[in-house]
Structures are given as C-alpha cells and as structure tokens.
C-alpha cells in the first residue's frame, strides 16, 4: 500500500529536481550567509550607537526594527548578530563533522581495539546532555569565541562519528574494499578515495542537521548568559538582553528569535526537500 504523496518536482537544475519549498529555504540560507559576510558594510547605524531616545522603541522609519533596551538600532544589531551566530556555528560544525567523519571512517576501516575504544569513549561523551556539558565547560574555562567554537564542536563530534562509522562499516564490506586492501593501499587512501566518495552525500545532509543543533545550542547558551559576552552579541544574546521587552511585546525581543527560527527551519526544510538521491543513506 503506497499512501505516500509524491513530491512534486518543479525545477530541474544540475540533473536534480527541486521543489518550491527547497528553493525558498535555500534562498533564505543564502541571504543569511551574505548578510553574515557583508554585515559591516550594510549596517544603517554603528551597533554600539544609541540612536533612539526611547528604549524598546517600535518599528518606524529609520529604525526599521525598533530599538533595544539602550535605544540602539535593532536592525543593525540583528544583522551583526548573524555574523556571530552563523560564523561560530559554521566553524564548530566544520570541526565537528571533519573530526567525527575522519575518526568514524578510520574506526570502520581499522576495526579492532581502536574501533572499540573510540566507540565506547564517544558513546560515553554522547551520554552527557549537551546543554549541561556546554554549561560546565564554558563556566570552567570562561566564554570566548574560540572556547565556544571548540566546546560546540566537541559536543557534536560523537554524533558525527556514530553516523559516519555506521555508513562506513557498510561500505567496508564491499568487494572493492577487499580489492583495494589486497592491492596494499594505505588507510589514508582507503578512507579518502574508497569510502569518502561513497558516503559523501548522506554526510553532507548530516552536516546540515548538525549545523541546526549547534545554532540552537549556541543560542541557548547565549540566552543563559554563558555564550557570547557583551559587547559582542549573537541572536541568543540579543534575546537575553531584551527579555525585558516581553511585557510590551516590542520587536527587540521578537526579531532575534525570528531570525534564529528562519535560519534553522530553512536548513531543516532544505534537507527534508533535498532530492531523494542526495538525502538517502543507501543512494
């Protein structure tokens, strides 16, 4: 019984068909990326300048998103926040996925005690709730951009490792792997030229999901006051700063939340609407 609704392909590009939701989601992601890169050049006001006599001002001409708790321009602060939220999360997810995937492939190819030790240890790491881990580590060594990036990366290495290892173990049983081994290829060659090309697409989808987790955790930590420290402010910190605006329902507290949501929902939707060929593990 096939009750599945066939996704309606609307576009064709590079041999894959995309549907509308996927296209819109990728446009939102592209927009935030461009903003993160070019934020300093497009700010309407310097982020530290007090431009409004009133705090938690409403949206109006010149201050398109109102003002924050000190009367600073909210639009500038949100645009600049994109830089920190996207930048830190991207750096962390790159480190996490690179280390996790390399370790996972090595463990799958080598097997034996290395595999057992790595798997046990990383499974144990996985049993620490992520927010708690972030809380303890950031409190222990203080909070700075490099510390945040490393902490977030370490928290998500076990997940990336588990995912990549499970995929690589399947590839490892293939005939071409036996052939490559008989040829006497090195581990480096095996993981780089035989396994990686075969697990690349699901790993990329996993990269996107992990990016969402990291954005959410970073925002959560910043919201608790343990993430980025003033005067720097990412989106989570902007919500924290302006939480006093909640009773007035001022844009200052709503807009940064919406910014986070637009980014994370877009990435999730993009992955959900990827062509099946890219998304599925066994493709």
């Amino acid at each position: 019984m096939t009750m599945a609704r066939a996704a309606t392909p609307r576009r064709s590009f590079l041999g894959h068909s995309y549907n509308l939701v996927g296209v819109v989601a990728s446009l939102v992601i592209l927009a935030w990326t461009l903003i993160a890169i070019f934020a300093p050049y497009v700010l309407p006001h310097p982020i530290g300048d007090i431009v409004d006599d009133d705090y938690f001002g409403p949206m109006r001409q010149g201050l398109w998103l109102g003002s924050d708790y000190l009367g600073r321009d909210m639009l500038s602060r949100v645009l600049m926040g994109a830089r920190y939220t996207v930048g830190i999360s991207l750096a962390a997810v790159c480190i996490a996925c690179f280390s996790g995937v390399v370790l996972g492939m090595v463990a799958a190819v080598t097997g034996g005690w290395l595999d057992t030790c790595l798997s046990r240890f990383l499974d144990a790491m996985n049993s620490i709730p992520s927010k708690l881990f972030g809380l303890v580590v950031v409190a222990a060594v203080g909070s700075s951009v490099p510390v945040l990036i490393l902490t977030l990366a370490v928290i998500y290495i076990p997940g990336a490792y588990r995912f990549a290892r499970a995929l690589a173990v399947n590839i490892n049983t293939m005939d071409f792997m036996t052939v490559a081994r008989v040829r006497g290829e090195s581990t480096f060659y095996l993981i780089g030229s035989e396994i990686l090309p075969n697990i690349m697409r699901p790993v990329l989808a996993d990269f996107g999901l992990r990016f969402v987790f990291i954005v959410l955790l970073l925002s959560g930590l910043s919201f608790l006051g343990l993430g980025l420290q003033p005067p720097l402010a990412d989106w989570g910190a902007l919500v924290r700063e302006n939480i006093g605006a909640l009773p007035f329902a001022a844009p200052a507290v709503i807009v940064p939340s919406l910014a986070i949501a637009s980014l994370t929902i877009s990435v999730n939707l993009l992955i959900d609407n990827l062509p099946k060929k890219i998304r599925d593990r066994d493709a």
Partner: protein
Amino acid sequence: MTSRVLNLVLKRLGIAAITLLIVLFAVFFATSMLPGDTASMLLGQAATPEAVAGLREAMHLNDPAILRFLRWLLGLLHGDLGTSYANEMPIATLIGGRLVNTMKLAGITALLSVPLALTLGITAAMLRGSVYDRTVTILSIGLISVPEFMVATLAVLLFAVYLKWLPALSSVNEAHSLTDLVRIYAMPVITLTFVISAQMIRMTRAAVIETLSTPYVEMALLKGASRIRMVMRHALPNALGPIVNAVALSLSYLVGGVIIVETIFNYPGIAKLMVDAVATRDLPLIQSCAMIFCLGYLLLITTADIIAIVSNPRLR
C-alpha cells in the same frame, strides 16, 4: 525472556555503569578547572595568606585531583554530597526541595505530553498524506527547529501579554489554592510540553508508518479489515516497542528543556540552582547538580535502549 535478551540487557546495563563513571570523572575534572582559588574566594580580600593556606589544607585542596575524586565518589556512596562553598549548607538539604520541584514539573509535563503526542503521532500516521498529517508534521518540524527559549517567549507573549490569562513568572511559595497552583505551573508546563511533544510526535509517526508498510499489514488490508482495525489490532502492538523507545528518548530532552525553562520562568528547581551555582563558582553544588542531571539522562536513554532490545521479536 531468553538468555540472549538477558545477556544483551546486562551488557547494556554494564555499558551504562561504565558511562556513568566516565561522566562523573568528566564532571569532576571540568569543575576542578573553574578559574579562581576557592579558598581565597571564600575568605574574602582581607584574608591573610596563612588563613588561605590553612583553609586549603582543611578542604584538602592541595591533594592530587585523583585523590579528591575518589574521596568525592566515596562520599557519594554514603549519600554525602558535601557542603556548598557559597553558604556552607549541606548540599543534600539545598538540593532536596529543589529536586522535588523539578520532578513535579517534569512529571506533570510527561503526564500531559505523552498522551497528547501519542494521539497526534498515531493519527497523523494513520491519515498519512492528508492535510491534517501535513499540518502536524510542519508544526512539529517548526517546533524542533526553534530554540526552547523562543517557545517560552512566544508562550509568554500569547498567554500573558495578549490574552492575559496567566502570570509570566512563577513562584511556588505563593501557591495558596488550586487555581494559584494551575496558574503557576501552566506556563513552564506548556513550554516544556511543546518542546517534548514535537520530538515524540515525529518519532511515533515514523514508527507507526514503518509498521504500516510491512507485508502483514498489507495482508490485513487485503482481507478487508477496516483502517481502525488494521492500525489497532495489527500495526500498533508491533510498533509498541519503537514507540515506548521514542517516548523514553524524547523525555530525555526534558533535561535540556528544564535548564532553559526554569531560568526564563524563575522556577525554583534544580536547574536554576545549578545555573546560579555556575555564577557563584560553587564547585560541589555544580558537581552534584550535574551528576543528578546526567544520572536522569542516562537512566532515560538506557531504559529506551533496553525497551528496544526486549521488544525486538527477532531476539526472542
């Protein structure tokens, strides 16, 4: 239960025990790295170096870390959690009431969210592809994709600011009547329920859909069973294992959720206590709180794994 299942379960429990030890070790060392010397902090700026040295000696701060770890572990086994540095109260008393508050919050949330999520998840799977299913799916994806504090702020905006039904802050001490109690718990519970249910709905829906695509359900369809009977009699009993697994896993998201929710609503639970302890660098208190959280989390994910093992018919 055959010996094979028993073996797997025992092995899983063994792994959980080892994991717990590693986690305790990690928590202990992470907190030992907290900046600042506890002894000089406790005595204040006017302390003489001799007094600081004396206190360090009395608190065994000069001992190697591994010795302190073992001493701490031994104390835990005796039920002795140590004394808080900040106000010199036994940690057990500090945590006691707070833990009960957090358990109440978590318990009420679980009672509400489990039936809600199961109903939504199962019905969405039954009506797969319908407008209803798509609405539920999109809403749950949306909820999973946003941070917990955003759910909380939206709940405050909706119920406290626009509708003015509920107060934005909760204070357990002011509860005099049943209505007060409901008003206090409503906001944190609503937020947590949203966060937990979204995960549970997705996992339940996936589990039921997987069983619905098996040959024996197709057989039931072909012999003319109604859709309700097909789901209730044929699919659900077999999806029960994965569903209970999903429930236990989703409940472990409570651990992360309460940290944010207790902070934002100023709820006097153990997570708030821990966030405050991080601010005052109260080492023993952080260790104990972190340990309780890890223990609860580990308990839930181990339960989920064991249920998955026991309910797998292939292992019987």
